[in-house]
């Protein structure tokens, strides 16, 4: 018996516990489990499954189905094994005539209220009710049931218990006639997701699962379509529509989600090479079996008809596209690029790496520019999101990454969420945070908007510092002022771990009365008492953790705020153990990885400066080239140089700079000035309107590789189907490199698998030295640094000391942004994202997620709307010094008076027409979060929008393929 092992993702019925070992006997076998473990789980661990329906190990035991009854020597009756904890020496019998009869009796009741349409049911073969009927040996249902929930008609007319299937959610259905009321969905919604959208309505036989209240269906309820309920459902009651359409999957491959920086592990469940569904993998260390609407359901873009599958070229961007062979496209591109380098200079071309592609692919793209083009003109979209994180944490702690793993949140007591909207941007992490908050941890939110994490079902922030956009540094410094002047700093930590003299200087700086909450209140808008209360709570509330997002970095003082956050953590001794730390919430799936892989113009992989000859020597010897010691161009510089006529060619992989980068008009002008723009993407994105070569990309389902998430975790991406475009993206980059190398007569690249690229990364980059695909296969994932010092990776950073040696306090002087409101532009615009859409929307707009968000809207406070005669749903013109666009208004007090908010998911709105070219002083990260604007009533799209739409339509013409 003990030789038998369940698969590692088997359902053990109840959650794992961590108490002292307890030994008991189950069916004659001794088993030792942690104290607090249920008899059911202990039995499973002993290899003895116990029948169950209401128990599943993602939620606490409930004890409702009564199938898992066992007999325990010395105890009366037949206790439920799921709710009975083990005790030392307990003797359990899982199968006795008594419990066998009871289980059959319970199953007979279940089946008496269940439609026996198993053969045509979408859960046929994947139904726990069906399995349990077999397990308990049910042979007869003697009830000639009159009262049921599944019959549409009763003897005397329509059956009042019958509720038709709810198909309102685009991805799954709720069929009440198949429901066994085990409450697994309700409990998953509460315990795992934390949304509380589901409940049981009615009582007794009338107990029914209900989304929302009253006339709500799943779509109109609070449901966020995370899929936890569908995952938990043991029957066909909550079921993916894709399974109903395609049938049950027959194989699965574990891979990593390609949306946000949480990096959830999923099982891609397949039938042939058709993806049937994505199921969160319970052993995924980032997500622990949970998912959100994007990763779980929004994969339809991968097979969307908009996908471009053949390479295309054109001489001028005013020409229509021409589909050509890979050879022709690559040689066209290589000739142009080499030609530009010949006629202008070596530095006239460059690359943009993608934060959505794999580490291996990103590594190759920066290698392309450094080893083939011979310059350092590489940048990545982290420029526009988390470049200040790299700078700020590098300066203070010594590493450009978050300090913790996501599990750490389970040990935190006080959380600061600043400039992040985790329930929308990082929903799976938000669910784990909310679970901890419900368990009693305290929350401080620093955000101009009242986001859902401030107050939603069963959670509420202790303090919400609704600051005026652009005043992060002042608020963070005022918190430090409070902590230092009230004597709350953790001086022993600081003495031990930081540079005391730098601290003394910093303490003197923050103690200045001009940094006091009372002094800063005038321009931050945060009441001094609120700020002081937040600072005291953070300094004295136990383990303190800070999570932050782009609301911190995308400012002219983004790097300063990151430094301020690091200061706060050091000041309160909250670095280097579980439950604390500084944690950037990364926007895209591989934004951490793209930074790690040397995408920045000044850094080789592993954040080593190109001016460092030792580092260059490593790569020069590996690549057989000479590396330029001068940093290359950042994206904004590339565009500036292009407008000046000095930058002529760009290979842009998996990023849509026209839509995502600020000041769209400037981006367009830069692109239009280039002679060779190569876009490598799934779709004809907005940037492709200015491209000469389009190289079709592959989705994350179509290639092998690795993504690195926000906790530095290197997760495997596995190919589950062949690339529809013919090549994985790393192969395309290699083909382009080889086409260029052929032009110059140099030796060709010859990678045959991404694992070979990872070997090259490991051999050149110390923090990745121990990473191999074999190790990832064995461990599932590892967090860098992974090397001889940390062969299993590093879940927590700076445990015994900071990577840079002593933690460094740096003064954080608040300097107001130059973007100021005035009579013409009296409001401040801040931007963000929404749960159902992702980034520029290229993927999510091509899925049914549009039912939740089919256009960008402008959130405006009722007071500001009233002043302008704007009603909810009106078209309004949004204008800044840079440009103007029109969109619909949504009147809400989530934003404060004077602040408006929108998202940037839809190209026909183009919020970035509005944003300015102000940027972070240290890293050029654009100031997306603060733009002075005016809002006025409007009749419809602006002239610019109409021209843009016309230009895009012209630009997307594709000539029919030659006969």
């Amino acid at each position, binding site marked *: 018996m003990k030789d038998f092992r369940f698969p590692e993702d088997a359902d053990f019925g109840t959650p794992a516990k961590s108490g002292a070992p307890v030994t008991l006997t189950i069916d004659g076998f001794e088993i030792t489990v942690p104290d607090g473990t249920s008899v059911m789980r202990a039995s499973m661990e002993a290899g003895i499954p116990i029948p169950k329906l209401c128990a599943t190990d993602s939620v606490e035991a409930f004890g409702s189905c009564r199938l898992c009854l066992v007999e325990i020597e010395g105890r009366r009756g037949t206790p439920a094994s799921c709710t009975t904890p083990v005790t030392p020496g307990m003797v359990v019998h899982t199968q006795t005539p008594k419990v066998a009869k*009871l289980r059959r009796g*319970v199953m007979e009741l279940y089946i008496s209220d269940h439609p026996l349409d198993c053969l045509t049911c979408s859960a046929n073969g994947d139904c726990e009710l069906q399995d349990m009927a077999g397990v308990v040996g049910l042979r007869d249902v003697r009830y000639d*049931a*009159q009262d049921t929930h599944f019959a549409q008609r009763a003897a005397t007319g329509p059956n009042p218990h019958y509720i038709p299937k709810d198909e309102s959610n685009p991805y799954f259905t709720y069929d009440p006639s198949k429901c066994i009321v085990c409450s697994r969905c309700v409990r998953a919604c509460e315990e795992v997701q934390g949304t509380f959208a589901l409940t*049981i309505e009615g009582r*007794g036989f009338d107990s029914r699962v209900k989304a929302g209240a009253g006339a709500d269906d799943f779509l109109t309820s609070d449901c966020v379509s995370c899929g936890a309920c569908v995952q938990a459902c043991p029957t066909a009651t909550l079921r993916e529509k894709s399974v109903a359409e395609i049938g049950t999957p027959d194989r699965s491959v574990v891979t990593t989600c390609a949306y946000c920086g949480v990096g959830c592990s999923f099982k891609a469940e397949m039938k042939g090479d058709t993806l049937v569904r994505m199921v969160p993998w319970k052993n995924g260390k980032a997500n622990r079996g949970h998912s959100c609407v994007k990763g779980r359901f929004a994969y339809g873009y991968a097979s969307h008809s908009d996908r471009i599958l053949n390479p295309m070229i054109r001489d001028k961007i005013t020409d229509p596209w021409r589909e050509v062979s890979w050879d022709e496209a690559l040689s066209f591109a290589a000739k142009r690029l080499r030609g530009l380098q010949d006629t202008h200079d070596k530095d006239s071309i460059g690359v943009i790496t993608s934060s959505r592609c794999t580490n291996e692919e990103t590594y190759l793209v920066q290698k392309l520019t450094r080893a083939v083009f011979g310059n350092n003109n590489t940048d990545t979209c982290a420029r526009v999101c988390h470049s200040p994180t790299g700078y700020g944490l590098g300066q203070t702690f010594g590493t450009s990454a978050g300090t913790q793993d996501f599990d750490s949140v389970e040990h935190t007591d006080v959380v600061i969420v600043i400039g992040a909207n985790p329930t929308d941007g990082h929903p799976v992490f938000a669910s784990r945070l909310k679970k901890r908050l419900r368990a009693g941890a305290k929350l401080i939110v620093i955000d101009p908007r009242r986001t859902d994490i401030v107050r939603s079902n069963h959670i509420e922030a202790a303090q919400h510092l609704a600051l005026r956009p652009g005043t992060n540094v002042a608020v963070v410094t005022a918190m430090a002022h409070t902590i230092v002047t009230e004597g709350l700093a953790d001086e022993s930590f600081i003495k031990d771990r930081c540079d005391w003299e730098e601290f003394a200087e910093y303490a003197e700086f923050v103690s200045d009365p001009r940094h006091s909450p009372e002094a800063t209140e005038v321009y931050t808008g945060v009441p001094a008492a609120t700020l002081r209360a937040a600072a005291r709570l953070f300094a004295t509330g136990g383990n303190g953790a800070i999570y932050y997002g782009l609301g911190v970095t995308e400012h002219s003082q983004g790097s300063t705020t990151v430094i301020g956050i690091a200061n706060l953590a050091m000041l309160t001794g909250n670095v280097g153990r579980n439950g604390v730390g500084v944690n950037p919430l990364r926007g895209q799936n591989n934004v951490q990885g793209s930074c790690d892989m040397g995408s920045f113009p000044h850094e080789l992989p592993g954040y080593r400066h190109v001016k460092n000859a030792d580092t260059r020597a490593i790569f020069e010897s590996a690549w057989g080239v000479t590396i330029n010691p001068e940093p290359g161009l950042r994206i904004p510089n590339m565009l500036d140089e292009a407008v000046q006529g000095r930058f002529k060619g760009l290979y842009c992989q998996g990023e849509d700079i026209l839509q995502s980068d600020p000041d769209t008009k400037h981006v367009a002008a830069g692109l239009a000035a280039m002679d060779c723009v190569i876009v490598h993407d799934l779709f004809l994105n907005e940037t492709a309107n200015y491209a000469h070569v389009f190289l079709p990309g592959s989705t994350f389902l179509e290639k092998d590789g690795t993504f690195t998430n926000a906790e530095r975790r290197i997760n495997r991406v596995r190919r589950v189907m062949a690339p529809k475009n013919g090549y994985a993206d790393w192969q395309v980059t290699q083909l382009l490199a080889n086409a260029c190398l052929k032009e110059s007569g140099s030796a060709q690249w010859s990678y045959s698998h991404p694992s070979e690229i990872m070997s090259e990364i490991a051999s050149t980059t110390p923090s990745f030295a121990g990473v191999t695909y074999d190790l990832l296969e064995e461990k599932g994932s590892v967090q860098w640094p992974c090397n001889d010092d940390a062969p299993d990776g590093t879940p927590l950073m700076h445990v015994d000391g900071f990577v840079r040696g002593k933690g460094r306090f740096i003064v954080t002087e608040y300097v107001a942004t130059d973007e100021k409101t005035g009579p013409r532009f009296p409001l401040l615009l801040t931007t963000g994202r929404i749960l159902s859409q992702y980034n520029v929307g290229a993927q999510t707009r091509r899925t049914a997620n549009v039912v939740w968000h089919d256009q960008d809207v402008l959130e405006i406070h009722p007071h500001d709307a009233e002043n302008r005669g704007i009603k909810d749903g009106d078209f309004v013109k949004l204008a800044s010094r840079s440009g103007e666009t029109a969109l619909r208004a949504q009147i809400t007090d989530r934003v404060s008076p004077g602040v408006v908010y929108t998202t940037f998911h839809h190209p026909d709105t183009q919020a970035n027409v509005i944003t300015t070219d102000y940027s972070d002083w240290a890293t050029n990260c654009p100031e997306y979060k603060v733009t002075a604007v005016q809002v006025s009533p409007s009749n419809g799209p602006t002239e610019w929008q109409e021209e843009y739409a016309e230009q895009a339509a012209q630009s997307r013409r594709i000539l029919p393929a030659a006969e």
Partner: protein
Amino acid sequence: MSMTFYLPKDASARAMGADAVAAAITKAAPDAKLIRTGTRGMTWLEPLLELELDGTRHGFGPVEPGDIAGILADPQGHPKALGPVTDIPFFKTQTRLTFARVGVIAPTDMAAYGAHGGLTGLRRALSMSAAAMVEEVKASGLRGRGGAGFPTGIKWDTVRLANADQKYIVCNADEGDSGTFADRMLMEGDPFTLIEGMAIAGIATGATKGYVYLRSEYPDAIATMNAAVIAARKGGLLGDLLGSGQQFDMEIRVGAGAYVCGEETSLLNSLEGKRGVVRAKPPLPALEGFMGKPTVVNNVISLASVPTIFANGAAAYADQGLGRSRGTIPVQLAGNVKFGGLFEAGFGMTLGALVNDIAGGTATGRPVKAVQVGGPLGAYFAPHQFDTPFGYEEFDGAGGLIGHAGITIYDDSADMLGMARFAMEFCAVESCGKCTPCRIGAVRGVEMLDRMKSGDPVAQEVLEDLCETMRDGSLCALGGFTPYPVLSALRLFPDDFAARKEAAE
């Protein structure tokens, strides 16, 4: 000469017209003193008016407003004169410990409470250590009067020994069993006794906050309890207890009409504002109860029995009773009964003595066919079982339970198949819906009894299997005890089930 009348303000007396009687007294004798009390528990005599004559309270009942003039004119000679109330046999044979003051004093009169022995228990408790207090309760043999019969002292000890920043005393006053009314009569008649019992429980266990979860169907009890809590705070029975520095306060919380919220774990859910569904045990409420904190959940009568235990000593209480059932039990006689009401006596009286001698048989005068003991989930007993002594183990041994000590009497016209069906129907209506045996089983049970009624020969076996599944498989006593009335009716009165079958054939 100033006259003093006593007239119950209890809901049962008011239902019988006590308020009109009170109005008549005020009108006819404006100078007379009228004290509204609880009820003596002799329901068939309500409104039972008492007039103090030479220091003795003489009873008149059932009184109508038109009787007042006659009573004033000639008290002793009035046809409804019952003589000294305490000499009425139904009353005289009782041992009133828990209900000692019920019917005697005005419910919220703190001075009267003190004058009749109130606060003595609390005073003694305040002089004892918590451990000694728990020992006192253990020594009294007091067991849970809500029905489960769990030793109260052991429950208190679990809470006392639990380590927590906050503990609670929760009084279960969701008295939903049909035919029971002891909790209501106590709360309406002597609320301070309950409050004192809760305060003592608080001191003994380290709980500083109490709640009474009171069913919404008891508006009079809610009003009385709320008034009593205010009076108790003024009188030192709540807050700083009798100036001792020990703290205990409480609130009255009203239920929302669910029978199952009388089950302690659904009660706690409801009290927390959640759906009233049963929680699996463990964890025991004593360790993780209200708001996840250690909580004593005790029935009204259990808590109200505590002051007398402390006032007169555990031994005096434990002197009463039989076997492991110590002390007194307020038996509630209802249904088709001649002398209905509340009868407090030591455990050990036989069921027959209670039904025939005390209750006087049926109101219709027809022979007793069956009695149901312990509410709608209790087993039926037939006259041949009437020698069963009233005690937890004794009833368990006879295949029944004493529950909350309600006895409902039926004469020989009762249709026992119909009664069995009612039990299943009751379970179906009141099920919280959490566990399968109760949620689906009760509905199927009704269907099976209908099939038996129509003569289906297979139905009985299915019904018996169903009862086994419900009894051993249900999460709480609602589904678990519903088979008691069903199967006992089937076993005791097979003809009631078979007759239909024959008729159909």
